[in-house]
């Protein structure tokens, strides 16, 4: 897929991947074998009819392709960009057994962008109104998926969003250069156009509790998302210039800090930045720091390149943009100056031992290998816990040791009647598509429950 060149894109926040022109899309789609018993579908957490929509592209009937995807996925422009397809549908693709698998994600994106470019968005067939009321907590990927599914099934759906913009992590977490915010807005507006009511600036758990909402609504889905960032619990993490990835990315993405002072929220523009972690959020943070004009951005990760949890595509993008990978490196202390600002980071070299419970080779510190590197900022991107507000304010809800809401994997139902949950509030930090998969399962279960109640 065509991309902005690295030397261009490090100077802007525009989208890196430019998308397929129609000829390329049709050519790529023609590689699909149209398997009688396709495997790709099974790799998709929301079960898109993949050969179905690809066939439409081959036949040049893109509009039908859109309709096919939207039967099961309300957010194709987003999934086409941020899903880890190489771990899901494309991993199962039969074409991939010899050579490259079909680029399913890119084709999904192509179809969604084609529809947006036409300027008119088709509304699916809607079931007659049931009169049942459902409240959804959080307008992130999980909540929006549930809202989409239930409004189509005829229920009355209201979303309560804590922030001033909808989209959740798609808005505050994933940067503009990977997922333009106009696309998130477009997808949210689509769901609103189906009749979903959305209240922003409404913190369920504080403005109203879940129990108060239950007096008004027949069912509640909690998709309140990520919570407090994890830190390494080493000295110096409260120094100035040390940011959680959530803070750093929220300042830049949701609050548009990269356009300060046109926008009021400031973001620091340090010259030597350490990003600690190896996932997609770490890649996003490192590439953001590059775009904010840092001279050197180091990604500090305790295992080797093979174990990086980020998508390989994002790792390669980061490498092309000049992010320096300090692999097999563990920070042990952040050192401040006399004014309380970070100036150095002390690290240890690591080596890989036997595989641990996660199946990855365990990093072991090399005794006496300590060394000190100067940095004027550090971004800690090692994950986060589920948001604490609903667990803190909803008595009787079963909560896991890690702070997440406990649900049944088959239905998304919590320990309390009429309350469902899914996404990061259940899983901790996971992917957009797994949150949407949770949403799909919960929506089906809520629907069944509401219709059986009569």
């Amino acid at each position, binding site marked *: 897929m065509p991309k902005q060149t690295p030397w261009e894109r490090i100077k802007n926040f525009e989208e890196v991947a430019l998308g397929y022109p129609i000829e390329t899309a049709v050519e790529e789609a023609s590689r699909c074998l149209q398997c009688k018993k396709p495997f790709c579908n099974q790799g998709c957490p929301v079960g898109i009819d993949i050969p179905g929509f690809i066939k439409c592209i081959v036949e040049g009937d893109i509009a039908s392709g859109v309709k096919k995807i939207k039967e099961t996925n309300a957010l194709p422009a987003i999934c086409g960009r941020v899903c880890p397809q190489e771990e899901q549908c494309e991993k199962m693709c039969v074409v991939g057994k010899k050579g490259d698998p079909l680029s399913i994600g890119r084709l999904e994106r192509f179809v969604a962008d084609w529809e947006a470019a036409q300027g008119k968005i088709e509304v699916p067939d809607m079931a007659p109104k049931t009169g049942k009321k459902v409240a959804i907590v959080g307008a992130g990927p999980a909540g929006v998926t549930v809202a989409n599914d239930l409004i189509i099934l005829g229920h009355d759906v209201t979303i309560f969003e804590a922030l001033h913009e909808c989209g959740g992590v798609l808005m505050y977490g994933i940067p503009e250069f990977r997922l333009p915010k106009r696309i998130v807005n477009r997808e949210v507006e689509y769901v609103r156009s189906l009749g979903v009511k959305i209240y922003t600036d409404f913190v369920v758990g504080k*403005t109203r509790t879940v129990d108060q909402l239950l007096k008004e609504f027949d069912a509640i889905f909690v998709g309140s998302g990520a919570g407090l960032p994890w830190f390494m619990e080493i000295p110096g993490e409260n120094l100035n210039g040390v940011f959680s990835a959530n803070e750093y990315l929220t300042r830049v993405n949701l609050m548009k800090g990269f356009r300060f002072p046109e926008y009021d929220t400031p973001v620091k523009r340090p010259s030597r930045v350490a990003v600690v972690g190896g996932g997609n959020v770490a890649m996003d943070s490192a590439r953001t720091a590059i775009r904010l004009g840092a001279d050197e951005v180091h990604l500090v990760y305790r295992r080797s390149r093979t174990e990086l949890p980020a998508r390989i595509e994002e790792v390669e993008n980061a490498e092309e943009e000049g992010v320096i990978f300090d692999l097999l490196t563990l920070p042990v202390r952040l050192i401040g100056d006399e004014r309380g600002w970070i100036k150095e980071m002390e690290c240890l070299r690591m080596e890989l031992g036997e595989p641990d419970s996660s199946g990855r080779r365990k990093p072991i510190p090399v005794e006496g290998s300590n060394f000190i590197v100067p940095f004027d900022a550090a971004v800690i991107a090692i994950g986060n816990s589920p948001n604490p507000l609903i667990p803190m304010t909803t008595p009787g809800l079963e909560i896991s040791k890690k702070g997440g809401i406990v649900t049944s994997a088959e239905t998304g139902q919590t320990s309390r009647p009429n309350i469902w949950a899914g996404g990061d509030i259940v899983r901790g930090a996971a992917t957009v598509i797994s949150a949407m998969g949770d949403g799909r399962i919960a929506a089906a279960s809520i629907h069944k429950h509401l219709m059986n109640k009569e």
Partner: protein
Amino acid sequence: MAYKIIERRMIVPNLHEFIVEAPAVAESVKPGNFVIVRPDEHGERIPLSVADWDRTAGTVTSIFMQVGGSTAKLARLKPGNTIPTYVGPLGKETVIQNFGAVLCLGGCYGIGSIYPIARALKEAGNKVYSVLEARSSFLLYWEDKFHKVSDKVFIITRDGTRGKKGHIGQIPEMLQQAGIVPNLTIVNGCTFQMMRMSQITKPLGWKTIVNMNPIMIDGTGMCGVCRLSVGGKMKFACVDGPDFDGHEIDWEEFLARRKSYNPEEVDPLRHSSCRSHF
């Protein structure tokens, strides 16, 4: 969304009374809570302590101090204007029960935010001793409101133009002369005042609760910028607080963190304020 400004007036130099129509917040707000506001579509999210409310009218009152670019924007609002974000109530409420005798110390915007705390403590059956501190008499406000909810109101001004001349260091002596030993001390005010009072009460063994005021963004337990060290542990003011035991806080670290965006806070004032008045 759009929230209507009912009142925004400077009640004493640099401090503004700010009343906003926000029925959902007014319905559930409690003493010690805060709200997050955004003055306009390009504005940042800033936390304001809540100072009063009217559940029937659906309005919420704060007192804020004009310091940087964002509060300057708030200070330019007029009744009838709207702001795009007003969300809350956030944070845990101040613990209200019958403690016996409670000392409520307020300074600056904290005179406003400690008022509903004093009122609730009084309703819970406490003896309430309110201390209002300011540099000079012209910086004091809401004295009459405090008289209605306190057993006794003490005033301290640096220049002696009203009440006792001096500073909060004289509070223990003042209370001793009045024969008062508080079972609990609560402080709402600038960081420096809360730190000083905690240092003063620590050797006396007076349990002291402070209402912390760090930088925040989402205010709902997501971004982690409001972290502070309490008793050697990392806490987050937006969901674990904002009330904490003043004797347990790492004040030096907190003061440094609060100043981290000082240059950026003040910078917009230098080149934007003239134009935005026209």
